[in-house]
């Protein structure tokens, strides 16, 4: 099959504009301490960090919440392989940090820098109320969903059910014949979608670095 790539410079086209409600303005909202790193465990040692899930609470209306998913430049973190060379793990308590500790710190520092310049791609807004009968906190009214499509256009949906956004695993054929490698996650809302994924070549590059 002849597959090639051509390119063309064309005149500008008008950007698609939807008349959806504005995304919630969460500035000044408090972060509910439940940060979730959207991670992909490649294997026992490699973890890929694709994004971050954060829940915000409106301090003016404490029953109002917004979950935000952001995507970032993808990081691949390879933890130290203890025992590979027999001495990668330093046992000294003097250096005050082991190979694992140093790596964890490096990973946290890099992630913190990367998170500062992440793109917000999903907003999910809901309210809660106390169920008079059971005394439990339950959803109050409809949930609103915004998802930024890969094209840069926002999609919006409002519904009662909390599962409007589909999650699908993205795979690629693995170098090991017959197997597939999970490379990411696809989030969809209606016709809009975002794929958060790693570059499998980065895993190869790491291998070649070790050979050096």
């Amino acid at each position: 099959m002849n597959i090639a790539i051509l390119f063309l410079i064309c005149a500008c086209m008008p950007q698609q504009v939807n008349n959806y409600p504005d995304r919630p303005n969460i500035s000044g909202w408090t972060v509910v301490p439940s940060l979730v790193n959207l991670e992909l465990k490649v294997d026992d040692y490699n973890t890929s960090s694709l994004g971050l899930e954060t829940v915000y609470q409106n301090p003016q209306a404490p029953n109002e919440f917004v979950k935000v998913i952001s995507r970032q430049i993808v990081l691949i973190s390879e933890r130290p392989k203890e025992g590979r060379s027999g001495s990668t793990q330093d046992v000294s308590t003097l250096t005050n940090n082991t190979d694992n500790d140093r790596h964890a710190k490096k990973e946290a520092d890099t992630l913190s820098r990367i998170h500062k310049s992440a793109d917000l791609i999903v907003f999910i807004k809901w309210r809660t109320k106390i169920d008079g009968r059971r005394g439990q906190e339950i959803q109050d009214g409809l949930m609103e969903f915004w998802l930024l499509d890969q094209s840069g256009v926002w999609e919006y949906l409002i519904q009662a059910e909390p599962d409007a956004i589909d999650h699908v695993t993205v795979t690629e054929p693995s170098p090991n014949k017959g197997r597939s490698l999970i490379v990411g996650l696809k989030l969809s809302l209606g016709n809009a979608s975002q794929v958060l994924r790693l570059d499998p070549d980065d895993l190869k590059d790491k291998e070649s670095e070790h050979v050096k």
Partner: protein
Amino acid sequence: MLNNILRYFVIALFMLAVNVSAVALAKEVSVNSKESVKNQKVEEPEIPPDMPQYFLKRYEQFIPGKVAKPIEKINKRLKDLEKSKKRSEAEVNSLLAERQQLIDKFWSERDFKQIVDERIEDIQQEIFFQSQETPGLLFGANGGFRGDMAQVYLLHGSPGDPDLGFISIRNSDSTFNDLMLWLYMDKEGENIRFAFLFYRKGLGGGSFELLSQDSFMMDPCGAVNEIMRSHTYAYRGCTDEIYNALRQLELGTAVDGTPGYYYAWALFNFSQDPGLRQGKALQPPSPVSELLKRSTARVIGEPAPLTAEEKVSRFVFSDCDSCNSMIPAELNKDELTVSIVRKNLDWAIVGDEIKTELKIRIIIESLDDKKSGPIVVEIKFTHVVAKKLLTDNPEGKLVLYLLPSLASLPAGNYTVNIYIKNVLTNNAGENVSNKYAAWLENFVKK
């Protein structure tokens, strides 16, 4: 109560003895120093001070052989020169400078001098002596600065700092001599990182010595025999006496409440990390730079940092709302084309032109014929245009035709997985962008 009084009386007596011997030692040093003036000899103190001539002795535990050797050579040469009548001051100065250089290099590669000096100070101050957990415990009475206890303390500090591990002393009974356990936990406080078991040898007591668990790994009964009061060199393997003694150790409790099974465990085990041996934990710690070289750990993906000047003069970065990690781009599923607004890409400035480099990966799989296998195409695509074009028409689009010859693809249902990553690099060949666009879509080829 009586026991405590007796214990403190013994400690007081011991301290008196230590003080008397300290006075005696002081006198000896004083006499020696007078003599040394005569004989041009200098006596070395027990804990060597932080001076270049004492470097090897003060930091012995931390200096690997390959570092020590050249310094030993210099020290020997300096000693020879001291005795020699024809010594050259220039040579002495040069050797002193060379030694200082080696010492400076040693510390520049290690960031723990301050901690070591503090630990040496702790040993000098006998910090355990008045501690509630270890009353009366002295480094001086247990081999001094070169004893096993000091060696472990110098390398690993106190087990109770941070407050996860502990020191426990099990007083002697009819079966065992005094035992002392230094238990270091891992940072989470869940697993035993190191267990150093000290014991007083034989019937006479004496100073605490470190039990080498490594030596008894294959001979557990030998370990029990080693710490028994009735320790015998004619030991002939496991006997009922040894089994009973071990059981007694397991079931007993130290005065401080530490269950005996900790001691029994530490007889044969050094760490809950199976790869960790006592011998390794007593080796000089490697410099961090060496550990980093050996480390297999990596965090990759972060774009290389650029100076403010580089950012402006060498690159043009997209500045749209969602362009931090994303290349906003539109996929036309019918034609398999991807359109990217020019200003939404990162570019490198090359004279009057700008250049972008994209890695494009396309995987097409037939949904009808699973056996046919995926088609994988990967292309590195460099696109150069006049810089003016970006300034004059930033909204202009770059359209990538991913499948110009759709005709050759049999009709049917397909899944297409497209990945476009900006792989723009700086002069050092490091990635400066790493932004990407990706799709996973089904399409029908008619």
